């Protein structure tokens, strides 16, 4: 049986880890390589690095950073942020990333998913889907792009199914409203997406306490992995004790 995965997420800007809430007021949070090794030591199952650099210079440092991470890290990691072309995907994969995550660009050009998946395999293509409650959509949730600022006019469930059909290997689902609140994952939309597709679903946005992880990873919701940033970064939850808690509630975890 596959273990349910706990995935710390690190936001990267100009080669440094940064922390902020709802994409505002960033502050320096250290060297990504050191952060990554700490998470590996603590028992993280995978890591996600999201590059939020605004400049071309910031982005070009990313491939170097990915190489530094891949040289020392013994667990898988995903890199996302600003990836627009198959060549961008190629550069990141060549630098040693196991998976690449695309978001807005997948909405603008779904062929990118298909082309990259056929070249590098579905298993390395993660499509990040940011969603927000919207009554006018059949599922009640709309896909958002540009860091959650722009409604994409797509229904969350329809888009999740479409990315699977385009060849995505995994979905990283973030509820924009839950993100940063620490009030729990959005179980409703996570369950609907997990039911609608057969590729793995990573839940993201809102993790605050142990129960939040249990709620989203248990069979009745069905997420395959849970991503979180602040609770891990600030040691509010220790990964080992969180895993012990989940195991005591019947969730398969890796020790």
């Amino acid at each position, binding site marked *: *049986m*596959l*273990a*349910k*995965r706990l995935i710390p997420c690190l936001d990267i800007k100009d080669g440094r880890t940064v922390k902020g809430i709802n994409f505002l007021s960033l502050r320096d949070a250290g060297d990504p390589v050191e952060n990554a090794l700490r998470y*590996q030591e603590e028992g993280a*199952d*995978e890591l996600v690095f999201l590059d939020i650099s605004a400049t071309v210079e910031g982005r070009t440092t990313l491939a170097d950073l990915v*190489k530094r991470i*891949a*040289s*020392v890290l*013994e*667990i*898988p990691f995903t890199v996302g942020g600003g990836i627009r072309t198959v060549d961008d995907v190629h550069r990141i*994969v*060549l*630098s*040693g990333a*196991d998976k690449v995550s695309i978001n807005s660009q997948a909405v603008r050009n779904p062929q990118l998913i298909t082309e990259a998946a*056929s*070249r*590098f*395999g*579905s*298993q*390395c293509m993660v499509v990040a889907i940011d969603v927000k409650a919207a009554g006018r959509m059949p599922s009640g949730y709309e896909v958002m792009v540009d860091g959650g600022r722009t409604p994409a006019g797509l229904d969350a469930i329809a888009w999740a199914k479409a990315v699977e059909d385009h060849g995505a*290997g*995994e979905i990283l689902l973030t509820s924009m409203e839950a993100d940063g609140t620490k009030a729990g994952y959005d179980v409703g939309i996570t369950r609907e997406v997990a039911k609608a597709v*057969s*590729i*793995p679903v990573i839940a993201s946005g809102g993790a605050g306490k142990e129960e939040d992880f249990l709620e989203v990873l248990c069979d009745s919701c069905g997420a*395959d*992995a849970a991503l979180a940033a602040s609770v891990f970064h600030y040691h509010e939850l220790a990964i080992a004790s969180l895993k012990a808690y989940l195991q005591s509630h019947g969730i398969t975890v*890796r*020790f």
Partner: protein
Amino acid sequence: MTVLIDYDAGNVFSVTAALERLGEEVVLTDDPSTILSADHVVFPGVGHAAAAMEKLEERGLVDVLCAVKAPFLGICLGGQLMLSSSDEGPVRCLGLVPGRVMRFDKGQVHRIPQIGWNQVHYKDSPLFEGIRQDDWFFFDHSYYMDPDEGSSLAVSQADAFTYSSAIVMDNFFGVQFHPEKSGRAGARLLANFLEVR
């Protein structure tokens, strides 16, 4: 010296890094004489089986790989390509280990691809020396190895479905998981492989 087969198929950076962390000298090459003179040969692979076989053929590597006498380790797609054929194409493969590669059946396995950490239950082998029985390794695959009886070295479970997660035939080892991404257990497996003579 360990040779890593260069055929433009995936994550060679991480495999190289993992072997170098063990102090091993690694050469990435498609040169037949270098491959055939290596102490160990590692055959990585990520992507599509038919596309990968095509690249091996373009570079004239099929016969070279079949002629390797040194300990040989296929990883993920590399392990799959060691079997006789793959349904991912379908395509004829190297035939180093009898058996075929099949796609997980949606009726039996509820998440495809299988991405994440899974337990590996192994038979006695130098490859798994010192590794805890049922220890965790990282997997990322939609197809699985179905070797003929006797060539399976380890099994794992996808939901209730049991499949081979490691295969062996003489000097040829194949693993479905990524040892280079599997923490200490994976590093130990690679170290064990480098000890095989």
